[in-house]
């Protein structure tokens, strides 16, 4: 055994904490799953690490890196367990963060409101200062007004402060000065400034993001310290990285300052895992869908890259940050089927969650769920979930779906299939939103399901979208943890300033890039990243001068202006179907991401039972397309060697997922041990 050769990815979810470890020298992979401990998430991580070490007989001292995907920040937001937070704004603008965009979340609902800001009005304070649209100071910062605010902050015993001034993204001097003054007067109070959290145009979204960040800082900082100490005590040589919403890792120190960057930590890791899986199977364009208990996340990956989006709601609050472009829909295994007042059958968004869970969990669930429908159709393994460690009450599923069938005057199987088709229709709408509506034809993509329930629903979605191929990863239930192992360390830099795309501005653009390059060098040095692993990505946000929303253009290096405009035209044609070569074009932001790359993972070794001609472990009746069940062979995925081929109908069980091969489908296990399904009945 070599010292420091193991890297561990730890993904903390709502129900389970997944661990995936790889020995960078031998390629050996190990998995472990423990129950999450929401009250103290670090406990499950430590228990998981110790359990994993015991399972594969290694010493935790041999762990060189731990990469962590976390929901701590998101949960703290949802449950409002953050700090007592105050806000400091430009004079006359403390209401800005409460007014937001002056809209209602639902047009026809008189009671639906967006949530109130986390800093109530009496904790939002104003100081005398004003910066203008060219970054010029209109009203100098009045320190006396700052000191008056500091007195109030002290009296109110706030734990965190968000500072957000107008146009601070162009001129951060006032925010910085106020931060320094507060830090000197009130040590121990966490401080976020909008110019550091996300220095970009649009004051409401920037202020909201900054306020959320400040609200999370104290809680997250405590968590990070605990985790860092616990890991250091067991694995003194290990670096700890925290996954960000853009799919790259940050250091613990950065995470302490910017907890809001973890809002999409887990799903971003899933996207990284999916990219790794696609690359290993020689594919480049895939649509992923990760089906959990209450929701499904879908993402589009093209040329082995996932697009970033910058605006998203987190717990009802707008957040502006680079985040993987994931669309979430309330459709999961626990989604409840119900009859609306007009008699139509609906599925979700209400979910039975983990408690009570679907009826078949036997924990008191009395409403039919998607999982119950799968049980009725024989699609879920009768030996239960998680390799048989969790048994299923199939009678309960028949009972609850049967009650609905009686009301509708249909057979229990018809209703079960109806539930699954409506579930597919809901997911298909989410997939269309990230594909068709952005100028991509889903038929040009391979569908990649993951998460415990993903593979069960792949065929229904592929059929509705006309997708011909489905790729099922070797470890669909643990892809997020695996993604953490392949995530690069990263730090994003941005310059947000509207500049016309004209020759005379080429110099200004180049200067912005070099300034960010200097910051990247600093970051690499600070993070001690090996020069061989250093890489940068560059992008420009561009739009027509008359437009309000930007397109992001990925660049290798800053090209000349003419080329830059051509790239914008191509992107505009792709997104909107047309471009106008004569209209003036603006660059509104330049973005540079510094990376510390990580070595690629090797393909895990096959299990001892693997063979190219596996035999079914059993047979069972399964309802596929027809009105009667088909007796299908049931295989264990561990028995599949690379090169195995199979024709449907068949069921493939594995530790935490069930795969279905429909009649007419063919499957082939590739060298990376992923399964590529070629759908047979494309017209159905």
């Amino acid at each position, binding site marked *: 055994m070599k010292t420091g050769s193991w890297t561990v990815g730890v993904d903390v979810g709502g129900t389970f904490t997944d661990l995936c470890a790889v020995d960078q020298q031998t390629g050996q992979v190990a998995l472990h799953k423990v129950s999450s401990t929401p009250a103290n998430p670090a406990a499950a991580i430590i228990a998981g690490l110790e359990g994993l070490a015991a399972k594969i007989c290694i010493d935790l001292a041999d762990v060189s890196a731990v990469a962590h995907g976390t929901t701590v920040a998101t949960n703290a937001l949802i449950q409002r367990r953050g700090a007592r937070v105050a806000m400091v704004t430009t004079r006359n603008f403390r209401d800005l963060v409460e007014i937001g965009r002056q809209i209602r979340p639902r047009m026809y609902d008189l009671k639906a409101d967006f949530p109130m800001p986390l800093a109530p009005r009496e904790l939002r304070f104003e100081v005398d200062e004003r910066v203008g649209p060219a970054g010029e100071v209109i009203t100098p910062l009045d320190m006396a007004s700052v000191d008056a605010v500091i007195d109030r902050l002290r009296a109110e015993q706030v734990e965190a402060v968000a500072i957000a001034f107008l146009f601070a993204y162009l001129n951060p001097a006032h925010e910085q000065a106020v931060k320094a003054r507060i830090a000197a007067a009130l040590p121990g109070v966490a401080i976020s400034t909008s110019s550091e959290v996300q220095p970009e145009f649009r004051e409401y979204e920037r202020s909201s993001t900054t306020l959320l960040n400040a609200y999370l800082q104290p809680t997250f900082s405590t968590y990070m310290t605990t985790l860092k100490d616990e890991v250091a005590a067991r694995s003194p040589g290990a670096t700890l990285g925290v996954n960000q919403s853009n799919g790259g890792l940050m250091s613990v120190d950065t995470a302490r300052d910017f907890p809001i960057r973890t809002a999409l930590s887990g799903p971003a890791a899933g996207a990284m895992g999916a990219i790794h899986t696609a690359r290993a199977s020689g594919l480049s364009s895939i649509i992923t869908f990760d089906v959990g208990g209450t929701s499904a996340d879908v993402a589009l990956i093209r040329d082995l890259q996932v697009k970033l989006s910058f605006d998203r709601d987190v717990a009802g609050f707008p957040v502006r940050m680079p985040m993987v472009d994931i669309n979430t829909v309330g459709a999961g295994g626990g989604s409840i089927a119900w009859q609306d007042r007009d008699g139509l059958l609906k599925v979700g968004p209400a979910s039975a969650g983990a408690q009570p869970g679907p009826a078949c969990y036997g924990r008191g669930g009395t409403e039919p769920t998607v999982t119950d429908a799968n049980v009725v159709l024989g699609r879920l393994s009768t030996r239960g979930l998680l390799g048989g460690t969790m048994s299923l009450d199939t009678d309960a599923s028949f009972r609850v779906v049967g009650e609905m069938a009686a009301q509708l005057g249909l057979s229990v199987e018809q209703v079960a299939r109806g539930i699954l088709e409506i579930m597919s229709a809901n997911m298909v709408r989410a997939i*269309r939103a990230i594909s068709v509506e952005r100028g991509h034809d889903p038929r040009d993509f391979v569908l990649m399901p993951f998460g415990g329930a993903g593979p069960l629903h792949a065929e229904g979605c592929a059929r509705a979208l006309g997708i011909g191929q489905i790729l099922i990863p070797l470890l669909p239930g643990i892809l997020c943890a695996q993604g953490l192992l392949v995530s690069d360390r990263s730090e994003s830099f941005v310059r947000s300033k509207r500049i016309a795309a004209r020759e005379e501005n080429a110099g200004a653009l180049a200067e912005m890039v070099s300034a960010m390059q200097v910051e990247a060098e600093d970051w690499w040095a600070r993070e001690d990243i090996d020069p061989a692993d250093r890489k940068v990505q560059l992008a420009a946000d561009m739009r027509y001068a008359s437009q309000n929303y930007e397109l992001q253009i990925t660049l290798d290096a800053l090209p000349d202006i003419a080329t830059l405009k051509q790239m914008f035209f191509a992107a505009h044609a792709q997104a909107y179907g047309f471009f106008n070569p004569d209209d003036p074009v603006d660059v509104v932001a330049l973005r540079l991401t510094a990376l510390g790359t990580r070595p690629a993972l090797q393909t895990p070794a096959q299990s001892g039972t693997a063979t190219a001609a596996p035999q079914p472990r059993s047979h069972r009746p399964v309802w596929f397309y027809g009105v009667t069940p088909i007796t299908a062979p049931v295989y264990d995925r561990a028995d599949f060697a690379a090169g195995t081929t199979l024709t449907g109908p068949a069921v493939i069980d594995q530790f935490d997922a069930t795969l279905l091969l429909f009649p007419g489908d063919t499957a082939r296990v590739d060298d990376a041990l992923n399964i590529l399904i070629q759908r047979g009945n494309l017209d159905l």
Partner: protein
Amino acid sequence: MSATVDPITIEIVTSAFRSVVDETFIALMKSAYSTNIKERHDHSTAICDRDGRLIVQAEMSLPIHIASMTGLMETLLAKYRLDEIHEGDVFVANDPHVAGGTHLPDINYAAPLFLEGELVGFICNIAHHADIGGMVPGSMAGGMSEIYQEGLRIPLVRLFRKGELQQDIMDLFLLNARIPDERRGDHFAQIAACKLGVRRVAEIGTRYPLPLIREVWDELIRRTHDRMRAAITAVPDGVYAFEDVMDDDGLGTTNIPLKLKITVAGDRVVFDLRGSAPQVRGNINLPLNATKAAVAYALRTLLDPEIANNQGIIDCCEIVADPGSIVNCQAPAPVAQRLNTSQRLVDVIIGAFAPAIPGRVVGAANGANTTAVFSGIDPRNGQPYLYFETLGGGFGGRDDRDGKDGVQVHITNTSNLPIEAIETEYPLRVVSYGFIEDSGGAGQYRGGAGLRRVIQPVGHDCTFNGAGERFTNAPWGIFGAGPGGTGRFVLTGPAGETVLEVKPSAVAVPEGSSVTVETPGSGGYGPAEDRSAGAVAGDARSGKFSDGFLRRNYPAQMTAQKTPRTEPA
């Protein structure tokens, strides 16, 4: 047709059509040139069947647009026999008096859908163009007294014949609008959205047989209709009357009454608006279709917010309104600012329903679509500019919670423009933006506050145009609650403050002066004495209310308070 299709199939097939209208909605939003469409989403998409019945509407569609679409359908089907409509045709209209529209900037498009060679319905979209010609830029200002002044009137025309663009018609459209390049972009976005919808529906046609689709549409409407009828049945039978007045038509008529008598009998409800004012000279008149849109919005919102938007609801809206009245205006009545009246009509419907369904109604909202327009020559580049915005205000108190401060209400839901966008694009400075003290009506659940925004020109003189409502008639509280604050426009210069008219036009704003826009607040819900002491203490802490206001409206609660209130920094 017999109801044999099962509820699972209805849901799945309908879901496919919902995808089409949502996709065309996004496509139109992204490819349009007008800020109004791109940023403020003032557009809608829908599918109607060949009888003109509304089948599905995009989720983000605006209530005011529903009736325009069915209005266009009625016009189209009255003008052409089905065998005169061909694949590749595209129909266009905007006129409120002869083509089912509600005001001229909203341009309606419809393209026929053919499956198996048969006309089955239409894909429709509607978008608010930033200008449609007429006497003022933007085609929306007050002060216009005839529809001819408000812009180009388009009766139903066939812009595409069997796939071929009638260029002469398009040329006519463009010659009559300011900034024709931008208009062309918006028209092409609407055309592209039609073509996309035609293609997507054809794809659905390959998956489901036509008879099934027809049956699903019939059943969908029938089930929605039955569901709405059931919701009406749950309202106690009776006659419910209410009345309110509009401030001002901008051309000299003030305190314009809107009268409503609702009769609920079993599963029917009739909205009798007779007795409302005759149509007025100023452009706040409602075409009957706009009245219908307000009624449909109120029915859905008050009785069953989750119900699907289709013909099943519209068929429940029985309206009696005198032709030539403000709620059923006749040519050549001007209508551009009709939204203010629609908002007030919704308040009136809510006020009437209050005794029947007390748990579902709310205090009167800001009842307006407060419009502020700044224009001038940008000293930075010598180019003319026009900054147009509508501001939200108070939303009324509810039966279990306070109203909402500073938000768009009822049938509009358009965003504000970021301050950093305003100041970057226009030579204007936003001096302040916040809630107005004491503007939320007192009550067990208080009304929401209005907004104040102060704007000044930078380095030049500019011009201000505005349209307000509830500047003189305050938004009322409900069940004993107090009224919200009124709005106003104020010009502040070196010489002091001048309160402007309710619908001021062409006000000179010299450099060094500023315009204050104050929008109305809203009424509360329930008597002020029932407000909890904790909630009153919260009002004090937040600084949204003055000490004097609180002592006046909540004397008992204020006396009970022991801790002195703290002043904000």
